[in-house]
């Protein structure tokens, strides 16, 4: 399983019947975070050793949380607008 790569946002305006269909590439966000994670890794390892936390296991668990976001769906219908956000 992978973290969500794309956020699909659909906005439908009932007043004029217009639909906006957006594909937001979250994968770019992960790519931006990757160098930051690599830079911070030594500091995180040291802090983990001091605090007695298994850093790699914790990171694995955090990755699973990110993976778990895959398939999240939020729908909002309000004031003539219908918004759907779907993570895939």
């Amino acid at each position, binding site marked *: 399983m992978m973290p969500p790569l794309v956020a699909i946002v659909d906005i439908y305006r009932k007043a004029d019947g217009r639909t906006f269909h957006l594909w937001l590439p979250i994968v770019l966000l992960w790519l931006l975070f990757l160098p930051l994670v690599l830079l911070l890794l030594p500091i995180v390892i040291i802090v983990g050793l001091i605090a007695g*936390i298994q850093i790699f296991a914790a990171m694995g668990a955090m990755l699973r949380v990110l993976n*778990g976001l895959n398939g999240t769906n939020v*729908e909002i219908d309000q004031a003539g607008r219908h918004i759907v956000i779907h993570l895939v």
Partner: protein
Amino acid sequence: MSENRRQILEMLSQGKITADEAERLIAAVEKEPAGATGPGTDAPRTEKLKYFRVVVDAIDPKDGPTKVNVRVPMQLLRAGVRLTSFIPPLARERMNSAMKSKGIDFDINQLKPENLEDLIEQLNDFTVDIDHEDAKVRVFCE
């Protein structure tokens, strides 16, 4: 008539649930394999929960009728529970005492990855219905 069906119809006649909810519950009861709820049946349910759902149907004073429908994969819940095992003991104690001060008798130490599947299995029967004059909230798993 089965016991479950009779209870659902009683709840409907008492006005505790709506006709739609009764229909859904009866459908769920009928779908359940025979003997699955009987005593001594430890066979796992074939239907695995996939999503945690929150449905809100409210009337916003500013924007009028509002519907919110959130579907979170159960995988996220599983991962979240696994993440709790990395909470330092001191933080766990603080969380427990904070919850106790709010009247919630819950021990975060009991939330272990090995108990995870049992916990999720129990969510099969978990439903929260809040029926307020301005909002209806339903939390359930499917």
